[in-house]
């Protein structure tokens, strides 16, 4: 078993004092970030990337820190869902449906413990899925030429726009904006400047970290500023009794089949490009409701209604790492941010990552297992500590978030120009969120734009300008068809399938 021996090597990398410490810090920070309303996995990781980068951490430790934050945030999102009926991040939205009623019945402690266990189960088995599926996908990906890569990028945008958003035209617009931003700067193949308007600062292009932190973190500050003093920004956890912190055996036994099904569904949702954790938790909850809700107890505090979305979203978090690591195409907002991290460290994810930098891949996967156990241990007995963090009011929290964003970006370049660009992206992100334009396609466009163009031009160079080369191989035709239907079918049939989230302008976190 090649895979298992590679995994064993990974453990030997992850089990150093420094990496264990980073995983612990990451899990702790991640849980807090996930629990705080308004901060979720994408913007939490986005703020921390520039910091990890400027601190000069090597690739593997930096990645371990940030993926621990990612997994931690997925755990943490449930805390405020259950206690306050405010989802800490978007994937935790479904957890409010049964979690909050359980808390009202005086079973807050059981709900938290049960959801912690469900999170562990989902994430643990999804990480195993990652271990076995990613190398298989790599074998396929090694057959890809430039034309196939071009089709694959198109597929990522199409499914992201088709499945995961409410208005496909807006997702397409967002993707176009992101790709357009990526075009700014000197063209990599011919060396001519494009869209720079003579501004020297633009010759290097727009740094994607600046765009990400502006769009995700700073726009959140504006949203809070706009909603100041309204009920949205406040919550009160002080009057909720936690009760016992262990779920009874009977409750666990009742929820085991639910967790198993939700893990599988969530993992599949995560692997699909563009779907992500929100869809994972949504699908898990709705399928469970259809399958086992015989007495109409879902929505009134049914433990299975807590276990399903939590197992689902944590499994999806693991699943989303599969296409990110194996193909270099992220499956969700947060994995897009993690991709940015890898690119900032000069590591190109994709099939070659597994042969060139096996230490990064397997060290990371081993760290995920370790982090998962840490999170379970941390989340069951220490949950009351995290509950206390929820009491920090946003009027102290958001200024700190804004300032840390500035510190991170200033730390990279030390340039006022980059800070200006970040503020610009913050305002842009705020306006686009008001208008219901998803931000993830923008980020994906900024990240993948240059590679997408390079692959297209490489394919054209090989075929000497014959455009039909893009649709020549069966593999690329398959990808194009998948992309086409991934975008078109949801427009036609999607009304039955897409999550019907209540309309809010502040989707706290796209994943």
């Amino acid at each position, binding site marked *: 078993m090649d895979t298992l021996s590679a995994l064993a090597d990974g453990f030997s990398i992850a089990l150093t004092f420094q990496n264990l410490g980073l995983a612990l810090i990451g899990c702790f920070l991640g849980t807090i970030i996930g629990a705080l309303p308004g901060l979720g996995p994408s913007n939490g990781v986005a703020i921390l990337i520039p910091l990890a980068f400027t601190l000069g951490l090597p690739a593997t430790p930096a990645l371990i820190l940030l993926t621990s934050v990612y997994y931690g945030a997925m755990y943490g999102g449930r805390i405020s869902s259950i206690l306050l009926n405010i989802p800490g991040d978007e994937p935790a939205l479904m957890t409010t449906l049964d979690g909050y009623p359980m808390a009202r019945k005086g079973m807050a402690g059981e709900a938290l413990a049960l959801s912690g266990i469900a999170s562990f189960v989902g994430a643990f088995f999804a990480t195993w899925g990652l271990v076995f599926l990613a190398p298989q996908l790599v074998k396929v990906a090694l057959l890809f030429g430039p034309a196939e890569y071009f089709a694959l990028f198109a597929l990522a945008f199409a499914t992201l726009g088709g499945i995961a958003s409410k208005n496909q035209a807006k997702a*397409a617009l967002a993707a176009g904006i992101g790709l357009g931003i990526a075009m700014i700067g000197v063209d990599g193949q011919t060396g001519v400047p494009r869209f720079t308007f003579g501004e020297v600062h633009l010759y290097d292009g727009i740094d994607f970290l600046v765009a990400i932190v502006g769009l995700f973190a700073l726009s959140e500050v504006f949203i809070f500023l706009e909603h100041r003093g309204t009920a949205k920004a406040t919550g009160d956890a002080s009057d909720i009794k936690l009760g016992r912190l262990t779920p009874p055996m009977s409750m666990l036994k009742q929820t085991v089949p639910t967790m198993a099904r939700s893990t599988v569904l969530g993992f599949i949702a995560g692997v699909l490009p563009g779907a992500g954790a929100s869809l994972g938790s949504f699908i898990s909850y709705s399928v469970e409701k259809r399958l086992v809700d015989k007495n109409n107890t879902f929505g009134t505090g049914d433990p299975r209604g807590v276990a399903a979305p939590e197992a689902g979203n944590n499994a999806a978090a693991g699943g989303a790492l599969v296409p990110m690591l194996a193909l270099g195409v992220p499956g969700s907002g947060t994995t897009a941010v993690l991709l940015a991290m890898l690119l900032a460290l000069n590591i190109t994810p994709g099939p070659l990552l597994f042969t060139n930098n096996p230490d990064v891949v397997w060290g990371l996967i081993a760290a995920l297992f370790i982090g998962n156990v840490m999170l379970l241990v941390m989340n069951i007995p220490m949950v009351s500590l995290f509950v206390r963090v929820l009491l920090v009011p946003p009027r102290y929290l958001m200024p700190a978030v804004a300032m840390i964003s500035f510190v991170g970006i200033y730390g990279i370049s030390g340039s006022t120009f980059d800070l200006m660009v970040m503020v610009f992206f913050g305002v842009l992100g705020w306006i686009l969120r008001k208008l219901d334009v998803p931000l993830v396609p923008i980020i994906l466009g900024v990240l993948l734009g240059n590679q997408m163009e390079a692959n297209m031009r490489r394919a054209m160079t090989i075929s000497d300008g014959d455009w039909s080369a893009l649709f020549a191989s069966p593999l690329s035709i398959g990808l194009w068809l998948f992309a086409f239907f991934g975008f078109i079918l949801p427009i036609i049939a999607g009304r039955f399938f897409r999550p019907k989230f209540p309309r809010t302008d502040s989707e706290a976190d796209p994943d």
Partner: protein
Amino acid sequence: MSDRIMGGVGLLLAAFFIWQATLIQESFISDPVGPKIFPIIIGGLVGLSSLAIFLKPDDEPEWPDFSRLFEVGLTVAVMVAYAYALPSAGFVVSTAVAAGYLSWRLGTPPVKAAVAGAVIAIGIYVVFHLILGLSLARGPWGF
């Protein structure tokens, strides 16, 4: 209405983008595609999707009233001023002012907000500069 405006702006943006793309100078050695085609395709994508948004707008979002918009605008101004103040006034002073302002505008009473701003600035300075060794902006006083 908002969506129609966005669609219109998107169309203008697409037209501008394509126009700018045609102005890109070709270099004398080039691949068959050259540096213009892909940006023009993107411009087409932006134009098409803007047209779709223009023709089929969603419900109107809830815009804040004028005072809140003004407040967001003022905060943007403070952030821009902060970015310019960093190199000359140093990290701690400018951050304390900016964070205090933000905290005040988010509903903290003025005196408490000033304290919060100072605590945030010094906290970040201690954690990120003294403990983690990140380089922060140095002002005339070295912090």
